[in-house]
């Protein structure tokens, strides 16, 4: 045998060991049935043998075509949870990966039904503990989680990350932040906000897409900056823009931890904090991290990088837990372990 083949075999064995060494948890492909469609996802399990059913944290995505692991965004959380003996469950949004349908055709109510289907699925798994199910939701999941928490007592606690309460209020806030971030003020800002108000009014009427396109083409000020939506996105928005989580929040009795970044340009953090404070029935705790953005990444690492760019994905995966704001993973872990009685008997929490 040529010496190069022998060396390659040696290298191959080393790389096999490296793969096992780097794989800190087991990630299994799962299929969840939701009415007539199937959701494909990942069940992440700790790498240890054991016969005790595991507590599980269900992940609910934010906006966009997101796969079960959110392209690596969840990996540091999964690792920390697996190390603590907690399973994680997440799925590809509809139309992404293996899941049927298309995520842009969904309403928030349908997303809530998917979460319920996932809870049903967990309850049927012998290796998962149906008495210790929690949920963590990101951004847009703020309109999904309260609907399920309000009526499903199998969910024992929730973590809301950068979530909003009212769709239209959030949209307006985001537009203001976007325009201000490009230096707009005074008359220019007023003109653009007037246009935005008119656009919202048009969307509320659920006008045909062609009429919307015509309005954008004819009326959008040059400095408004945002491009018109695709037909699918437009329909997604007009089908969901009425959502407001307030009424569902008033029925939530489970403990809720809300986490935000102080540089969030998408969600009105103060509005969410105060609404949660005034509406939630159960224990509530919140935290606002310094120098953190909407995804709770450190501003130092991610300011100026578009979230859609591949560079964002590469950097996020490279940095792993280092990319997140200090304390985020620990806070999630502490909340989960407290409420699944893994470490300190699941002490209750008080509102902050």
């Amino acid at each position, binding site marked *: *045998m040529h010496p190069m083949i022998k060396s390659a075999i040696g290298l191959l064995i080393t790389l096999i060991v490296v793969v096992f060494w780097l794989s800190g948890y087991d990630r299994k492909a799962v299929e969840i049935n939701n009415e007539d469609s199937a959701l494909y996802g*990942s069940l992440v399990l700790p790498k240890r043998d054991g016969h005790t059913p595991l507590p599980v944290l269900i992940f609910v995505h934010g906006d966009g075509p997101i796969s079960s692991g959110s392209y690596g965004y969840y*990996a540091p959380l999964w690792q920390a949870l697996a190390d603590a003996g907690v399973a994680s469950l997440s799925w590809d949004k509809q*139309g992404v990966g293996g899941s049927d349908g298309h995520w842009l055709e969904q309403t928030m109510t349908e997303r809530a039904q998917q979460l319920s289907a996932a809870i049903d699925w967990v309850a049927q798994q012998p290796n998962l503990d149906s008495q210790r199910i929690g949920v963590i939701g990101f951004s847009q999941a703020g309109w999904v989680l309260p609907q399920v928490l309000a009526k499903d007592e199998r969910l024992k606690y929730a973590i809301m990350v950068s979530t909003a309460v009212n769709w239209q209020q959030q949209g307006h806030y985001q537009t203001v932040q976007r325009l201000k971030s490009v230096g707009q003020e005074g008359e220019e800002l007023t003109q653009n906000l007037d246009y935005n108000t008119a656009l919202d009014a048009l969307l509320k009427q659920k006008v045909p897409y062609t009429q919307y396109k015509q309005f954008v083409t004819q009326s959008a000020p040059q400095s408004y900056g945002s491009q018109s939506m695709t037909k699918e996105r437009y329909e997604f928005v007009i089908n969901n823009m009425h959502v407001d989580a307030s009424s569902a929040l008033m029925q939530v009795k489970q403990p809720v931890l809300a986490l935000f970044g102080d540089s969030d340009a998408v969600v009105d953090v103060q509005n969410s904090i105060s609404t949660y404070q005034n509406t939630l029935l159960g224990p509530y705790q919140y935290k606002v991290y310094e120098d953190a953005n909407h995804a709770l990444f450190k501003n130092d690492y991610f300011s100026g990088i578009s979230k859609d760019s591949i560079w964002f994905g590469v950097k996020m995966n490279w940095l792993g837990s280092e990319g997140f704001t200090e304390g985020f993973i620990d806070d999630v872990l502490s909340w989960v372990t407290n409420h699944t009685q893994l470490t300190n008997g699941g002490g209750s929490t008080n509102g902050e």
Partner: protein
Amino acid sequence: MENNVTDWYKKQRESAMWDMLFSCVLEVLVVFAVILLITPFFETLNTFWYGFFLILLPMYIFSEAASALGKLRRAVLAHEAELSAVPISTLCDKPIFHQWQCLSVAAGLLTVLPALGCATLYYLSSKSIVVMVVLGILMGIAIFIGSAMLFERYAIRLVAGTLQQARAPKQLDEAKSIDFLITYHFLPWLVFTTLVFGLLMSKYYLGYVADAGEVSLSSVAVYSFISVSFVGFWSCHTVLESIKADMKLQPMVLSGVGKFSYSDLVGMILGAGSIPWLLFFVIGFFVPVLSSGFWLTTIAAVIIIYAVLLGVGGACLLAFSQSQKQVSAEVCSQ
């Protein structure tokens, strides 16, 4: 004399090993990276990854081995004079006459082992991006080991077969020529290319549909033109030198083929590439968008098959035209 052959073979073997190592690791990593970076990136669509490991890995082993053996065959041809006194019986008992004869059922079953190994490792791994990158390198190394072992097994037999053919070239009639070109050049690369590029394009389309909800036919038209051009030129480049060597060792007959230059080849591939572009553009008037994964995958596969047909066909025409020119030049000089 035997020492001369041994030294010559050692040199060829060494060079083939390094070529295979670079080719395996770099080519596989490029394809792996492209699949990795097409949404939904490295996550989900697990079938693509199992397809990648279970189907592409064995095929890559054979394609890399066949490429290395093809190079060795051309080297024999180039050093024929140097090796003219070597008795073929001293080299081996069972010579083979083409690089693709390394493809056998037994070898095929053996290549399934690393494929199963990689798929199992993928199944057991955490499937994070770092793990996927390591798996990509590991796959490249596994392909190198497989193709290098195939090379070691068949190299001497191919040297013997090539020398035997070079010493007594047998002319093939037209039917046999076409049969030979289809069997040893078109079919192996058709299967390989369709699976590799078909997998890439279908994943791209599926990711696109998940993102935007649909793909416009005008985009499909543009992607089809790009696919046909790229895959056409790539296929042509892959088989051209090998076909030229075959035409020297076994003079072929392709009636009706006249002069065919490099510019004709470029014109042919680009011109034919514009046919699907035009077709989808016209269909776009009736069906402006597509969102069906089945149809998009079918379109991707058909376009790649068409491109391979063009690329290999173009290479055959060019090689034949050049071989005829050489024959004419030899006749004139006599």
